[in-house]
């Protein structure tokens, strides 16, 4: 078993995928000799050369569109959007093109590609280097949307994504790149898309999360167990679309209480859909209203350190919300 950071997990798995599948190309801004601004593609250029590790013009729309075209003609592109905040120039290509090719051609034309994007706050990135953009894409039929947040999950899901016959958006929380370390099994494994994971078992309340707030929720749960003796079950969605409702419902049947936590702002966040599903399908099992804790409805994470702290749903806030739910 090797211990890796999230960043190493991304990098090593990209290396492995490119070694195994010669149709894979990596393309994006600064992904070549520089190895990416976060070094997620470090070493790929040296190993696979400029034809498979392509430094693109600074133009997100065409990073995605050119990738789409390559996917039609024998390649499996892994496109990097340098920061998720800058994915919007490519929004039309992703939503109207990448996601719709299969459906609109009745299955004749398909787009096997991955779009990777580092997202999230906690890095003093201000409004434009901190955004969580996943809810724009979970809304769009035709895209798999993944957001793993441990090295093991990143490896397993990236391996699956690299075999998918359809487009995958792969969100990597940038604050967690170096912060999270974990064990990665030596033997080969894959994690199916659509499978959540119980990161901490408990019987009293259910907490559903992903990304940085997942780790914060685990911290909060440990603390709450210690201070109040409340045992929270913490579920990591890992895949946002399709969300593992089966796993959530199983937990809710046990706890009757559920809190959804994400960093993306509250209104119209992915938690809203999860909450609606639980309310519709699990009404009889609930002993409390479905609760949500999310970033406030301001345009992304403001820069000054106290602002950032105010914005992010960190462990102390999650702990308070968990207590509120448990006591309901």
């Amino acid at each position, binding site marked *: 078993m090797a211990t890796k950071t999230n960043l190493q997990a991304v990098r090593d798995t990209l290396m492995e995928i490119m070694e195994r599948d010669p149709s894979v190309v990596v393309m994006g801004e600064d992904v070549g000799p520089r190895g990416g601004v976060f070094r997620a593609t470090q070493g790929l250029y040296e190993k696979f050369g400029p034809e498979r590790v392509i430094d693109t013009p600074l133009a997100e729309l065409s990073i995605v569109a050119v990738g789409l075209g*390559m996917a039609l003609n024998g390649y499996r592109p892994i496109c990097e959007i340098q920061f998720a905040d800058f994915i919007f120039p490519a929004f039309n290509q992703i939503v109207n093109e990448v996601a719709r090719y299969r459906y*609109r051609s009745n299955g004749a*034309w398909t787009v096997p590609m991955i779009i990777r994007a580092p997202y999230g706050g906690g890095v003093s990135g201000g409004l434009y280097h901190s955004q969580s953009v996943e809810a724009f894409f979970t809304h769009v039929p035709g895209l798999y949307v993944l957001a793993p947040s441990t090295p093991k999950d990143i490896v397993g899901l990236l391996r699956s994504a690299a*075999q998918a*016959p359809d487009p995958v958006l792969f969100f990597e929380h940038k604050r967690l790149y170096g912060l999270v370390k974990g064990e990665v099994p030596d033997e080969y494994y894959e994690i199916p*898309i*659509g499978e959540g994971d119980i990161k901490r078992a408990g019987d009293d309340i259910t907490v559903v999360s992903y990304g940085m707030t997942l780790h914060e929720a685990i911290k909060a749960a440990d603390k709450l167990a210690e201070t109040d003796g409340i045992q929270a079950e913490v579920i990591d969605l890992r895949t946002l679309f*399709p969300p593992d409702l089966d796993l959530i419902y199983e937990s809710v049947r046990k706890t009757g209480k559920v809190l959804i936590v994400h960093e993306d702002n509250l209104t119209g966040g992915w938690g809203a859909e999860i909450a609606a599903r639980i309310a519709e399908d699990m009404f009889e099992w609930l002993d409390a209203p479905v609760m949500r804790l999310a970033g406030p409805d301001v345009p992304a994470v403001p820069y000054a350190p106290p602002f950032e702290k105010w914005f992010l749903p960190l462990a102390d806030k999650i702990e308070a919300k968990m207590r509120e739910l448990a006591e309901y």
Partner: protein
Amino acid sequence: MSVQEKVMTRPSDRLNEEQLLQMYYYMVLSRKLDERMWILNRQGKAPFHISGIGHEAIQVAQGFAMRKGHDWLFPHYRDIATCLILGVTPRQMLLALLGKEGDVFSRGRQMPEHFSYKPSKIVTVSSPVMTQAPQAVGVALASQLQGKDEVVVVGFGEGATSEGDFHEALNWAGIYHPPIVFVCQNNQYAISVHVKKQMPVENVADRAAAYNIRGVIVDGNDLLACYDVMVEAVERARRGEGPTLVEAKTYRPVPHSTADDDRSYRSREEVEQWKKRDPILLYEKYLMERGLLDEEKKAEVLKQVMQEVDDAVDFALHQPYPPVESAAEGVFGDFHLVKWPKAFKRNA
């Protein structure tokens, strides 16, 4: 080289009688099919149609300049003639017009003229204009990287060249020189907006200079002139000599689509003036001068075309619609590494 010699080396000089008449056939077939689609719309049988009328010269030219089934086409939505040449049948066009079962473009999901036919490498068309241009660059780059000798032809109107997608596509093309030909059908209007309000340069082809690629202007109503330009552009691309932006200057003598009324934005005189330069009229004149066409032969072609059109219409009108359940299918493909949660009613 003398002017005479130059003229003699035109690619169209190598076309034999049969090929020249075949081109004529496709022009007429496309036109008559198109006219019938308008009628079906006016009869309330077809919800929508967007037309290629008046644009047949460049469309037939590009179809004949391409290697059928080998080269790729990202069509302009007006490219009915090109698609017919590359292998789409009139029946298939009509099925798509009506959204019937057997519509090979999308099985009734997309509006008409959103072509897609994989056996002919005709890539699925969407409605947001110009999205196809950078995608076409990607296909061409992939061909280049794999050392294939395929060429990619991508079509669009002049209005859409204001979109950023166009400029990003040309930028990539200028950097990597993949085997691609950009074909602009400049019919001078984007719905109602005249080209003068669309761009600050005189010609779409002028825009090529900014990206260090070839820009060529051609009379888009002159079939053989278009053919010469297209063959040269396609074969240059195939030889690795880089991309070309072709601008075919033409005119749309009909409204933008069946949903448009063009009387509000241009004069009838202007339209009538252009009808005198109808590409089919011009080509008929040429063929007659060369002794390849006379009234009798014309009538024969028309009769054959109308049989095909009638057959297609009759066939399509009598086909069923796809089952409604099919509209919920095919959002994702089968994949062994996805676990669809049972509680998540897939596609419902």
